[in-house]
């Protein structure tokens, strides 16, 4: 899984590289446009285009029938039944491209969350590091230590939350930097990436998770923790980012879906795709 995440991550990184110094909207528009084109291409290749065209014509025809025979209740019901049937057929035609696209889209969304979901805190601000241990670990008996790279100060002792089997630290950013946070639990040593770039668009990994497949799909930013790890996950609580649209703060996922749909419908004629 890690290799796949790395490969997709590399592609997204290369694509977004030119946009790092720009307003995040630039990267978002580019990715949405690219995705729309890619999806149109996949859709065209994997769907039954003539079947879709024929089904859409039937839908139009049955809609006309409903309009024309609204005084004939039996004919109206018959048209309605046929309309439902062709709608189901239309959905069935969409199933195959959907199944083909769902995997890549999911991988892409997880990667995009790393780029658009969080923002770099400013120097002087603080960040919370949360380390969650496996249930078998007695954290009040652990000898916990945290090492931070230069530019980051470990600003508090560990606060151990016994109920949650979690230990938290507060980190203070003195300068924008990067590196690894090292958590020591006696002999064991675990790392968590920390990245505080000055660029407007940056890849920030909030969570390093264990080898659970679903977790790895959702949080592909870092290599999963080793199998025998005492730690379940390590979280660096970067502040959430929002895209500014005329003063409104928009979640990147909303922007992405709206833009992809706009681009998709805008370009379908140019690509001669029947949707």
């Amino acid at each position, binding site marked *: 899984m890690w290799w796949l995440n790395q490969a997709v991550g590399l592609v997204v990184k290369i694509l977004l590289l030119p946009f790092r110094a720009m307003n995040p909207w630039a990267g978002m528009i580019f990715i949405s446009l690219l995705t729309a084109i890619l999806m149109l291409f996949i859709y065209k290749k994997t769907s039954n285009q003539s079947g879709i065209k024929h089904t859409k014509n039937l839908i139009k025809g049955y809609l006309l029938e409903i309009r024309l025979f609204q005084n004939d209740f039996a004919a109206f019901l018959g048209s309605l039944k046929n309309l439902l049937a062709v709608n189901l057929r239309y959905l069935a035609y969409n199933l195959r491209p959907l199944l083909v696209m769902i995997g890549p889209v999911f991988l892409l969304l997880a990667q995009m969350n790393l780029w658009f979901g969080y923002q770099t805190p400013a120097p002087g601000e603080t960040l919370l590091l949360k380390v969650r241990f496996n249930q078998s670990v007695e954290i009040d008996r652990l000898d916990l230590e945290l090492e931070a790279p230069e530019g980051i100060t470990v600003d*508090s*002792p560990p*606060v151990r*939350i*016994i*109920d949650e089997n979690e230990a938290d630290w*507060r980190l203070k950013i003195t300068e924008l930097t990067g590196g690894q946070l090292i958590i020591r639990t006696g002999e064991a040593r675990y790392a968590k990436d920390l990245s505080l770039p000055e660029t407007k668009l940056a890849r920030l990994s909030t969570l390093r998770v264990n080898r659970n497949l679903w977790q790895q799909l959702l949080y592909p930013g870092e290599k999963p923790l080793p199998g025998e790890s005492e730690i379940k996950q390590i979280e660096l*609580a970067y502040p959430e980012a929002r895209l500014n649209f*005329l*003063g409104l703060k928009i979640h990147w996922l909303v922007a992405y879906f709206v833009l992809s749909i706009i681009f998709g419908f805008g370009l379908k004629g140019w690509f001669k795709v029947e949707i």
Partner: protein
Amino acid sequence: MAEEKEDNGLSRRQFLELILSTSAGLAFFPKTGFLTTKGRRQTARKVLVLGLDGLDPVLTAQLMKDNRLPNFKKLASAGSFLPLGSSIPPQSPVAWANFITGTDPGGHAIFDFVHRDPKNYMPVFSASESLPGKHEIKLGNLILPLSGGKINNLRRGRAFWQILEDYDIPATVFKIPSNYPPVESRQKTFSGMGTPDLKGYYGLFNFYTNEYKTITEEYGGGGRVHDVFVIGNRVESRIPGPNNPFKKGQPETYVDFKVFIDPVHPAAKITYQDQEFILKEKEWSGWKKIKFDFIPGQGVSGICLFYLKEVRPKFKLYVSPINIDPSDPALPLSTPESYSKELAKKFGPFFTKGLPADTAALENEVLDETEFLAQDELVYRESVTILEDQLKNFQSGLLFYYFSNTDQRQHMFYRFLDKNHPAYDEQQAAEFGPVIPRTYEDMDKVLQMCLEKVDGQTAVIVMSDHGFNPFRWGFNLNTWLLQTGYHHLLSGSRPEEVTLFQQTDWSRTKAYGVGLNALYLNLKGREAQGIVPLSERDSLTRQLAEQLEQLVDPRTGEKIILRAYLSREVYHGPYVDLAPDIILGFNRNYRISWNSPLGNFPRELIEDNRQKWSGDHMSSPAVIPGSLISSLPVKLADPALQDVTAGLLSLFGIKIPPEVTGRSIF
């Protein structure tokens, strides 16, 4: 080129600005402030007024002499430094209202911090009133208001920035007291003293502890103690919010929070809503947002500070009064409304409660002196940061900027300057004695920043509303009225147990005291159960005034009340009839006691003030004038607050309107 202007309306430029300020305009130019002063008249002269609440001229002169206030000295030597006549009484809301309107309380109707309702003799806040919505629908426990409630500023008279607006002169007025809610204006104004917290109090802190502790929830403020238990290194409690206007009975809203204490280290993690943060012992959190929900989709947001005072052996957590969030104000804070959001966007959350320093927490020993100063230092730093930005954008017209630190620290630390104060402590005085002079030095640094940033065309005025003196002894006015037969209680009453005049026999009572300097007659036709006929008013007030002025403290041989002012003689304007009949002008070191203002009858006539609130300004204005330091020479020998207002208007070439009774100081 001269700006095109219609005869009686807006100039073309203003009209375009107005259009752009509508939703369409905001959509395309989100950074354009709503109805900003941009584009209005460029004035050749600019005026900067620093309002330093309570800056005492005697102490200022002394520190200037000692070369500790070099910038004050520089300003004074370029222009003038004079005592500034304060209001009668010299309380901040009254005094600043004098300055705002250029008249005395008869013209602006603010006579005291506290007024009384003549219908029931109950104390009411003088500055503003909240009125609920008139129409509502009830659905079981749910109340759906059909019209919004209203908050009224009870100050009357026109503010000087409204007069400047008539002449198209831009003004920014930051946190001037007696302006809540801010009066309608196109000028940039931000409300100051009088602005409540989110609960509608003048500041209600919360204190969570497993130690036995009692706190006074004062009239309009104070604090609440929440008993908590530390179970498994975990504390759970709730932060009370405003009352829910959508529910029957308006129950108090609250937000649950949890504290996770580390088993060994003196640190804890606090979580509520989407907030989670770590605090070490003796550490402040910085501003945290908090949201109180009324019904789904309806709620208000505020900001507060957490202070983890102690983790072990006792758990002690202080949560500041919930300030109105300037980025999403639930109550009106500024004109235009966008000004508050504009500031919040630029600087993040900042204190919005009228008087930000939590004096009640210090008084109740929830915060100690060092902790109180740490909080007030945050107030100071925020004020300086915002001022710096305002100065950068100060292109034209007038900028008024207010600091509360001088007032609040003198109230709480005067006991360390006065060896004869009942609460003087030599050991503490060694540590905290320098606080007040250092605060003056801080103000000198503020002035230095101002002088460095303004150009040669800017007139700089530093002013205060009053001075300060020690509050050693408290006078129980209602006890005196009771002893002298002007006030009567129902038979069988025990005076010291009476509160809010609950046992008063109004059918025999001629006078009563409510507020900090006010004495009212129980006047027939005015008070609900008045007995003093109008024909006797003058003679009775004179008789009372004479007796009060003759009162001598047997312990010191000094007069308690220097002057008892008859409001009908010292006030002018349309609101004189609303004024108390007599205003007490206390002698130096004296003030009204803690219990008398709210209709209580303590046993002693004069009490030692052993509280931390040890400096005050309720004396006769002659005892504690304010300060006036101006870069321009002042032509009046005895300037008063309202004269400064007239002076400001004259600096812009404006003819002094008849309602402004002050004479120009320039």
